């Protein structure tokens, strides 16, 4: 009556190899995971990269030190502003430029807004991975307010390109402070709704707790950073460890959890949003007067040598490494992106779990695929 379909006959050991991606609703981009399954249990995960490789590092070699910053917005597009910030810091380090305090404060405020926006999107997308659609739309409501602030001051909503070596491109918009204060007031009400809708939910807790557990040793050996490392109790916040700009003068806590499971990583991000709000609250009324941009030469030439800076993006440590031969363009640029290291731990994380665990754990890694591939 029926024909044997060749799903199971393709394997001798009873294992089933499934491609999750490059086009799959859970990968949020063109990530390709080859998973070996035994029933529902995952035996092995093999990430295949390169589907969105645009050779940004190579492109940067042919762009001047002013031009290459805009390209980095396209790496981790959800924290575009922080990427630009890292590059500008590296160029400033090479040129020994003193950034005016006003520009520093504005940069930090926008950094933290970007972090909140990124975490908002992560929160919605992760809930969507778990099958709850509503949080996605609710998160976008608050994210939209941040985007409006960005649009008003930087002129763009996602790929801002607002930071230039020596400061910021334009002065802040007159409405900047007012809008941020409105956002903070609203956000503090809405964060409770987030917890009500998702955090306390018993289904959500069961899907997250004790899933994808990582020990501190694993995290360190894979070079994970950001909320993934902090979820396992590893102090890795660059803002605390190697403070840049004015972070050493600010009062905020590094969110740390010791659980190491998906739920810990979830809580870290939720708390980080609150800490970002705290930072913005400290700065928004204290933006010093003065220039928004230091005087720089028309053509920037980094001295011969190697320069490295790292910043804390929404996903972890982003390092910018520039080798200069003294010319107007970099000789070599290397970006140490957080997503790449965080992805590599995926196999250790969910081996032995179910397919649902893979989706939930991958959601808490907060992967942005262009950031991994560059």
């Amino acid at each position, binding site marked *: 009556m029926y024909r044997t379909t060749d799903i199971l006959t393709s394997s001798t050991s009873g294992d089933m190899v499934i491609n999750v991606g490059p086009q799959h609703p859970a990968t949020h981009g063109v990530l390709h995971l080859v998973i070996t399954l035994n029933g529902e249990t995952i035996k092995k995960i093999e990430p295949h990269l390169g589907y969105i490789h645009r050779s940004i590092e190579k492109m940067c070699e042919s*762009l001047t030190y*002013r*031009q*290459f910053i*805009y*390209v980095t917005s396209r790496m981790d597009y959800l924290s575009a502003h922080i990427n630009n910030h890292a590059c500008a810091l590296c160029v400033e380090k090479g040129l020994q430029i003193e950034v005016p305090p006003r520009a520093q404060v504005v940069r930090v405020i926008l950094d933290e807004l970007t972090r909140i926006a990124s975490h908002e999107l992560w929160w919605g997308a992760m809930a969507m991975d778990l099958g709850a659609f*509503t949080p996605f739309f609710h998160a976008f*409501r608050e994210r*939209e307010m941040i985007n*409006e602030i960005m*649009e*008003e*001051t*930087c*002129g*763009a909503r996602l*790929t801002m*390109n607002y930071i*230039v070596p020596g400061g910021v*491109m*334009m002065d802040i*918009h007159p409405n900047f402070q007012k809008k941020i204060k409105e956002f903070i007031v609203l956000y503090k009400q809405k964060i409770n*709704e987030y917890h*009500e*809708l*998702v955090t*306390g*939910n*018993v*289904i959500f*807790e069961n899907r997250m707790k004790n899933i994808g557990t990582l020990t501190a040793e694993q995290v360190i050996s894979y070079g994970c950073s950001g909320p993934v490392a902090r979820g396992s109790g590893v102090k890795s916040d660059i803002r605390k460890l190697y403070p840049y700009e004015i972070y050493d003068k600010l009062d905020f806590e590094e969110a740390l959890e010791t659980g190491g499971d998906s739920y810990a990583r979830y809580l870290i991000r939720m708390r980080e949003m609150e800490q970002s709000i705290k930072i913005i609250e400290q700065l928004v009324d204290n933006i010093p007067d003065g220039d928004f941009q230091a005087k720089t030469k028309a053509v920037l030439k980094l001295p011969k040598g190697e320069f490295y800076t790292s910043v804390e993006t929404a996903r972890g440590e982003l390092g910018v490494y520039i080798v200069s031969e003294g010319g107007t363009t970099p000789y070599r640029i290397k970006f140490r992106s957080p997503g790449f290291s965080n992805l590599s731990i995926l196999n250790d994380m969910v081996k032995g779990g179910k397919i649902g665990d893979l989706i939930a754990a991958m959601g808490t890694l907060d992967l942005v695929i262009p950031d991994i591939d560059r």
Partner: protein
Amino acid sequence: MFLKDYIKEVAGALKSLASGMKMTGYYFTHHKEIITEEYPDNRNSLVLAERFKGEVVMTHDENNEHACTGCTACELACPNATIKIITKFDVDEATGKKKKALDTFIYHLELCTLCNLCVDACPTGAIKMAPTFEHSVFDRNQLTKKLNNPGSKIRAGVE
């Protein structure tokens, strides 16, 4: 006791589910919270931020004069070769000297990443970003634009 914990667990689970349903129920019944913007319908009332980077335009005043000297600073600043400036030599009628001037300002919107570097680089403020965003056309050739108006010339006094 086992049974007590069991009942407590079930009750706690039900409570957490009820709190989520209470929230979604609130939004279901409160339609004023809806944030959807009906885009093509609200085109007339749409307010864009004045700094919004939609496309590069060249500002012309009422005498059809612009401020572009043809210095190609924007062309050099552009990371994507979006701008191409063609210059010509004008003869100054008073002195008879030859002077470099703008002939055509070609702007490739299809290549542009709207990074604002050209506007930042312009020494005379001749170009700026316009808050327009409905750029879709059926033929990509239409995205290659000539920014200086026909017959326009440089404003007097702009060097």
